[in-house]
């Protein structure tokens, strides 16, 4: 059972890490009007990210589904409690999903510019809010879990938010916002690097390259501030035998020293992100920065999430009632379900393989303005 709990936390963390990488779609959309100077540029950017948005969207849905299947108490507590936080995130993704297809179509009711602004809204707010939500894994949230409530015939709800803000209070914690903005700038960096790699347009590439530094500096400052503070702050430890949760000084620092391989993953990831950024800045011809930076992002986020949930750590701490905090032990599905789903998860490499194959088939040649004129289906 312990192996399965850790295995599923790994899979959920991996999906979360892939989601952050795939938010290059959001990042690129957030700079549509900054990078583009004319209609051709806008069309190139939107059609470039428009060929990937479904993967980001699907990863978000699967991340939710996997969390539901493996840690249903998180699904119940976080989504039911932090109602507004999740609703706003979802709403921005709905805006995005329709905007690609509708923005260039005749009769779209709201006009092309409105739909493009929807893409920018999703591009800015989704990374900030998702980053903020992830930060609560380290900083805690205000909820109470009381399973005994199930026998209260009048109000049998077992978990609820401890105040009336329904999750918006997460945005009052500056450290949540700091990670939120760090994720936004990271998404913008990844988006710019992706566009440089995916679009064959020299003017656009030149302007994109110039934007990398402006986003890299705030990203590094914010991310390092969050990371260092997290390592130095108190963390939330769980006794695996009793389930008792306590505050432990330097818990996340201890997690990295106890799990050296997680620290290594984060270090390699940071090196990858920095390599992608720095080489793009110093070389005028280098356009493949999305790959080291993207893989690096996956590794860093994976490492951070493993640090939040492994090594007897409460991954969703409660600031309202410490003993309500969620751990991979008290919030997981039954052994039968985790094992059954583990068999299903063996298909994931095949899924990844066909995604890579299909992606390469479509992206063998970078996107050009001529292609948009020739293609039957463009956004």
């Amino acid at each position, binding site marked *: 059972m312990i192996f399965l709990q850790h295995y599923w936390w790994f899979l959920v963390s991996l999906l979360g890490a892939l989601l952050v990488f795939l938010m290059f779609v959001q990042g690129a959309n957030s700079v549509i009007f900054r990078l583009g100077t004319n209609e051709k540029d806008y069309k190139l950017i939107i059609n470039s990210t428009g060929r990937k948005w479904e993967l980001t969207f699907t990863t978000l849905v699967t991340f*939710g589904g996997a969390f539901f299947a493996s840690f249903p*108490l998180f699904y119940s507590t976080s*989504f039911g409690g932090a109602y507004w936080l999740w609703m706003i995130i979802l709403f921005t993704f709905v805006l995005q999903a329709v905007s690609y*297809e509708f923005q260039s179509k005749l*009769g779209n*009711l709201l006009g092309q510019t409105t739909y493009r602004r929807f893409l920018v809204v999703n591009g800015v707010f989704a990374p900030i809010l998702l980053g903020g939500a992830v930060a609560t894994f380290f900083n805690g949230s205000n909820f109470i879990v009381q399973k005994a409530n199930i026998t209260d015939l009048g109000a049998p709800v077992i978990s609820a938010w401890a105040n009336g803000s329904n999750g918006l209070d997460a945005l009052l914690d500056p450290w949540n916002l700091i990670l939120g903005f760090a994720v936004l700038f990271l998404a913008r960096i990844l988006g710019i690097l992706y566009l440089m790699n995916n679009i064959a347009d020299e003017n656009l590439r030149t302007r994109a390259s110039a934007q990398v530094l402006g986003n890299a500096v705030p990203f590094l400052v914010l991310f390092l501030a969050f990371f260092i503070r997290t390592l130095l702050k108190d963390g939330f430890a769980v006794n695996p035998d009793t389930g008792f949760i306590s505050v432990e000084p330097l818990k996340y620092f201890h997690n990295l020293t106890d799990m050296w391989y997680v620290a290594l993953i984060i270090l390699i990831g940071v090196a990858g992100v920095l390599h992608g950024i720095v080489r793009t800045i110093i070389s005028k011809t280098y356009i493949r920065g999305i790959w080291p930076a993207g893989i690096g992002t996956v590794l860093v986020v994976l490492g951070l999430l493993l640090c939040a949930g492994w090594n007897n750590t409460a991954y969703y701490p409660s600031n309202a009632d410490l003993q309500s905090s969620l751990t991979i032990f008290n919030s997981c599905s039954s052994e039968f379900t985790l094992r059954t789903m583990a068999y299903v998860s063996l298909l994931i490499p095949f899924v990844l393989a066909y995604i890579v194959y299909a992606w390469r088939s479509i992206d063998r040649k970078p996107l050009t303005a001529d292609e948009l004129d020739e293609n039957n289906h463009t956004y």
Partner: protein
Amino acid sequence: MNIELIDWSRAQFALTAMYHWLFVPLTLGLGIIMSIMETIYHHNSDAFWKSTTQFWQKIFGINFAIGVATGIILEFEFGTNWSNYSWFVGDIFGAPLAIEGILAFFMEATFVAVMFFGWEKVSKRFHLTATWLTAIGATISAWWILVANSWMQHPTGMEFNPDTVRNEMMDFFAVALQPTAIVKFFHSVMSGWVVGAAVVTGISCWFLLKQRHARFAVSSMKVAAIFGLFASLTVAFTGDASGIEVAKQQPMKLAAAEGLRQGSEGAAFSIVPGIEIPKMLSILATHDSNGYVPGINDLVAEGGKRIENGRKAIAALGDYRAAKAEGNDAAAVAARKQLDEYMSDFGYGYLQRPEDLVPPIGLTYWAFRIMTGFGCYLIAFFAAVLLVLYHKKLKLQKWMYVVGFITIPISYIAGQAGWIVAEVGRQPWAIQDLLPVNAAISRLNPTNVKITFSLFLIFFTILLIAEIRILCKAVKNGPELPD
């Protein structure tokens, strides 16, 4: 629980589900139709079929995104608005949603991009494969979500664990392959195919009415009508099987759908109030002309005892947890015994009175009649279209084009009515006999739900209008056929 909160939460879920089912059926049906058309192109390399496929893919694309968008809201609403549900049965219910994501959504999302943008980038064979995999991905997705929905209608393959206060899966295949799920899958997916066929036939009729693209319209109709007739007949057959399942598992839903107050042997089927077919309901529900079908009053009469039993089960759960906390093993064993004895009525304990077991009768009754009436019409429609298309002496007439076009909204209304029967008819249950909606809900201020309901209503309606306008413009522009 706050009644206002329950009603608004139900309204929000119903709103999202109904909007979702405006877009998903076309994705399911049109996905297969355009795949068949591309297969024809693959075999004969006739550019006409390529253009025909591309036109229907354009219609598919306009509809696809908004179906995806409403779907994500639905998935997360299980957590945001039905958080108690998410814990109480998350061990079982989460699995189909996760499998749907891993197996179906990625397939759909990956290959839909190849389908739209790969015409000039990948080989003809790979493109055809991508088109089929997009349609198959959508169908597999429907399979898993309908497995989840069927489990709510007929919970099976699980056991209640009083230590974790939730139901836990014991038999995956009992959940994934139960007859209710199989019947529901074919019934729902085929109804989506019917919508796809009706849309293709209806739009083709419009072109014929306007005397444009005659070859394109007739060729599209030939594919769609065969497909539509097959699908509508399957919907009818699975509807019959579904009736048997509902009679066994959700007798109150059947009684409400029939407006049957008093149960009887040899029960009559009500066509509309005042017109009945003797013994037909017994035949449909039990496949026996003298079979007994319970009525609403009979089931309400049983309800009092079941509510009492349910409260005993819930009290026993409290006793069990208290005994365990105190380390009193003997008391825990006794409480567990009582819990097991009354567990089958557990959910009834949250109801206040037996009358709470009755779903809205008028809505369920008329939705059932609309569903079955339009379902019969659709069989006749596709049969008639095929007859006219393939009979040498018959010719398509102008009035037929108008009928064909009007059939588009009829197919949608039939599908919506079907879901009203399925979901309104099972109230007050979130999970049949196990968890009523008042015990499944999140603890929220009703104002929050009112605001999100209003936002979704306004936004989804704007998007629906936008989609219809875009579709109309796309149809008006017509296909780009080779000279």
